[in-house]
């Protein structure tokens, strides 16, 4: 989606994942360059915008940070409408959050088709406590997944992750 007036490409991107995997923290780190140690659950949707330049082109991400999926809350399909891409987030210290990612990807695909997605495995600063083993992630990479290991706390790979997605969205749009 491109704004004819400004030449800026706008993309709605949904942040999807189980609760407490760090979706909001990733957005806060990426958009505002801040991180809070305190876990603050998201109720509903938080919408943020981020402008960036990539390959000489202007991009506006409209980031929909959706409440994490769990026994209490299910992601509403209507929130996914119009998404150009998805950021699927798992917590490296909680292996079960990877299973939820697959369910949410299917939900996203069902709503908007097979749009570009990336898989962020967050909390790389706690790698000693990871329960998602590297073999599993390698298997996912072999299967074509774009897997990026990040830390919202120390900011490692956060910008790169979003830029990878931006690149894929631009490639698809052009």
């Amino acid at each position, binding site marked *: 989606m491109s704004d004819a007036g400004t030449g800026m490409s706008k993309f709605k991107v949904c942040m999807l994942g189980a609760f407490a995997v760090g979706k909001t923290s990733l957005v806060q780190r990426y958009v505002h360059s801040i991180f809070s140690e305190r876990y603050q659950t998201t109720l509903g949707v*938080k919408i943020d915008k981020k402008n960036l330049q990539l390959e000489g082109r202007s991009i506006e991400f409209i980031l929909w940070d959706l409440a994490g999926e769990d026994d209490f809350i299910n992601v509403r399909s209507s929130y996914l409408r119009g998404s150009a891409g998805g950021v699927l987030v798992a917590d490296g210290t909680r292996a079960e959050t990877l299973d939820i990612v697959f369910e949410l990807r299917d939900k996203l695909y069902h709503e908007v088709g097979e749009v570009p997605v990336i898989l962020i495995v967050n909390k790389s600063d706690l790698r000693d406590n990871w329960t998602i083993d590297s073999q599993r992630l390698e298997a996912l990479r072999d299967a074509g997944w774009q897997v990026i290991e990040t830390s919202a706390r120390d900011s490692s790979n956060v910008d790169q992750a979003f830029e990878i997605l931006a690149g894929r969205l631009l490639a698809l749009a052009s």
Partner: protein
Amino acid sequence: MSAYPETVVDKILQVTLQSNKFAYLAIDEKGRLVSQGGEISATGMPQWEPGQSILDEALFLSGYVPMSRDYEFIDAYQAGDGPIVDIHLFRDQEQIWIILVDKTSDMEWESAARQKANELRLLQQQTQRQTVTSDQDTDPHTQFDFFESLNMMALRANDDGSFERLEPVSDRFKCLYPESAESARALYPQRKFPFVENFLVDAAEVWEAGDSERRIRSGPWVETDGGCEVALEAIALYWKGNRLLFLEVLDESYRLNQSFLQMGREGVLLNRVLEDEVRKQTREIRAREEEIALRLVCAADSRDDGETGSHIRRLGLYSELIAQHLGWNDADAEEIRIAAPMHDIGKIGIPDHILKKPGQLTESEFEIMKLHPEIGGRILSNSETPLVQMARDICLGHHEKWDGSGYPHGLAGEKIPISARIVAIVDVFDALIHKRVYKNEIPIDQAIALMLEGRGSHFDPKLLDLFIRLKEKMTEIAFDYSNPIGDDLSKAASIIDDIHLLRPGD
């Protein structure tokens, strides 16, 4: 009038005559004109000729002439579109007097006053309706004032995609959505809030259905307003032809729901941390148990040149693999991995000259050797620990045979504990495919062929079939664990040997 001085009466007449138009008529008892005067045309009366009957045209006289009373008054009479007049009738002995007083200007003023009064009354009624918010009212503009106090903005959708704000809007919205402060302005909340743009798709369904019973809520969303987060919710409904959209600032209700959710999720996370800690501690305890068991078993078996640390380790792994494929739970499968290596612990009670004899045992020596299952059983008896109980079953039963020809008790079939039936298979398999001081190893296929000869006689047939189906994985264990902890255990064994050597007379 006599009560008033003539000067005063004259003045009253002067003022009255100047401000009102008058005419008079005098008629006889039969209604014929006697005389007339004043501004006849200004009172809307035609010009009559003296002697002419006026009863046919002066309809206001109908019923009054002939007069039965001395005085009659007709208030605000109007013929067609003519002037409005007050009519006074009175009679004397000869004729009837008719006085006409033009009241048109008075009535116009009164009408205007009446109009104002009615308008005020309507305004008053309207205000009352707004307060009560009756469902019978139809003008949305009069309905939504109270939303200001609810921190809610009411909008009506127009056909061109814009929205009309229904008064008034609260200060919160003026800050969050400054455009909404201008009352006449067409608003596009869908451009301001991407969330609303998305929600309008769902709202359109409700509006198109035209069902006032249906309404849809968006669920909460959060906007950032000058660094502060503001939680909002959108509601769409159709009402008396109006497509309405409400935007509500949630404030306290959002924070309350958020804190409930937060508590629930923190509870889940805490439980998970505790479960992980328990699992970790259990694993550590189990690992310690396993290490102690293996080292003790190794120490006991060190007197038997035929056994090695690697052998007992492999035995545990083969057994665990079979248990897993039998559908045992993880804890039970782990237990057999630890218990299986203890199968020959009773050999600790067999004299060295028999245990270490390089050649074939005599019948009496073999009878002594056959005591090791029961010795092991006794060592491991009277325990309430499931792991030790399983080890005892294995010690006692691993030389029993499916057809009942084994020892020490000649148990048959499923009377032999399943853990012992499993170990019976893997013990023979591992002994056949590995070299011992008294024999060479044989290839795996040959070993399996030999074991198949004992299917249904020596070995549980179903378990043997499962074992053969797992041949590839068994082979992996046989080679991958040729010496996994063997080094450590061999060291322990050699230390034990050294102790034996140091003990005089042993």
